[in-house]
């Protein structure tokens, strides 16, 4: 009798107690997204061992463009897929480039190196009109005191440059 009790207790504990608990545990593990599963090449800012410097995010460089006023420009997602199913308004507006928000621009700047944050002046630049942003009240300078949105002028005060330049 005592032996039977022991055996039934073993069976019950093994079938009812242990296995479903383990199964529930496994399911729970799968549902909870393991934050520690970040691949090692993603969870830190990459440094180039050859150069010894931070590397800019190639994903950003392949998809975004920085204007001289600090804005980032991107294409509309989904502009290439199933265009035949989409409206004519979409056909037109999906060709536009869209500016990112302030927070997104800040984030993209952090993924870049100083080389990519420099103002660039090209001859016959098709983006020339978009390098200027008017009516912005936020500070003109960054924490280093350098102008962030405009080209610094040579030996010219603001009162004079306002009369001839339309870049503020």
């Amino acid at each position: 009798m005592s032996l039977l009790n022991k055996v039934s207790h073993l069976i019950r504990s093994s079938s009812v107690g242990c296995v479903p608990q383990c199964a529930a545990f496994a399911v729970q593990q799968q549902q909870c997204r393991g934050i520690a599963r970040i691949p090692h090449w993603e969870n830190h800012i990459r440094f180039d061992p050859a150069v010894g410097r931070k590397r800019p995010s190639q994903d950003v460089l392949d998809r975004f463009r920085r204007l001289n006023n600090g804005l980032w420009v991107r294409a509309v997602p989904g502009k290439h897929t199933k265009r035949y199913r989409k409206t004519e308004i979409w056909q037109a507006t999906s060709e536009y480039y869209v500016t990112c928000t302030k927070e997104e621009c800040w984030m993209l700047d952090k993924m870049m190196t100083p080389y990519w944050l420099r103002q660039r002046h090209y001859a016959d630049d098709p983006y020339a009109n978009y390098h200027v942003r008017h009516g912005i009240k936020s500070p003109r300078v960054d924490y280093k005191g350098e102008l962030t949105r405009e080209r610094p002028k040579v030996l010219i005060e603001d009162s004079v440059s306002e009369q001839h330049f339309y870049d503020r």
Partner: protein
Amino acid sequence: MGSKSATERALNYLRRAPRVTLTDVRDNPGARTKGRLVRKKDNMAGQQYNDLRGAGKPPLGWIWGDFYKPWQRIYPGATFFNQDINLRREYPPLSLLELQRLIDLGWLDPSLPIDLTALCNTRQYRCDPSLRQFGVQLTDEGASVFAAKVNLEVQWASETAIAAVERAGGVVTTAYYDPIALTAAVDPLKWFEKGEPIPRRHSPPADLIGYYTDARHRGYLASPPAVEAARSELALKIGYALPDRTDDAQHDMLAARKDPLQVFFGLAPGWVVNLADQTLLKPKNPRLLHYYSGRLDASKDS
């Protein structure tokens, strides 16, 4: 020891005794207490150590969802945004207003031809050839107030800027400097101190030949009669009278042009400027003379 007197023994004792130092006035042990050192697990500043805190943090741009598709990866590729950034030519701009200001304040001498070297010597305008900057781009801000009569050599100029300079009686030429010649032109002192010969300017690359042979852009490779015709044409187009330059006191200065191979006014390519001895060293080797004469480009196939 016994033979010495008590005085002598006392002096010996004093001689061997330790001197009074700062350590004699130090605190007794335990008189002052430092901050209590606790174990790591007790020193968490109110934060508990858990897996989430100890784990590696997600990268910038990570959004909830597919880990392998951060925010910046959901947008379609537009590689033409940045792919040729290492091939583009940058031309740091200089407006007519700034040029006028530099002349008015005495940074530039309008009685001499103004080229990139003169502009960079002011240390107000900067051009860095290592950043693929190819020289001055003359922009038209301040065209209405530009009044200086100058002989100007820039690398790129807009039509309005050309018109403003020529209306004031001046001359504009657009000239190409290859990166090595530009390095010498931007900082001549540094180049001379290296002891290297003055380089010859190379001809423009294929996509710029059209610009620099065009008289409408006042290219340095355009023929002088075509440039004269383009001057009068632009004066007609914008609507101003072209000043007469024949009986001008500054005629010689305004007519001065560099040779297409020349980097500095008055100095030929191939010369070495010895700053220590204040001398010029000119090449005599026929091969050097042939190289610096610029006929190499024409007879490349032979």
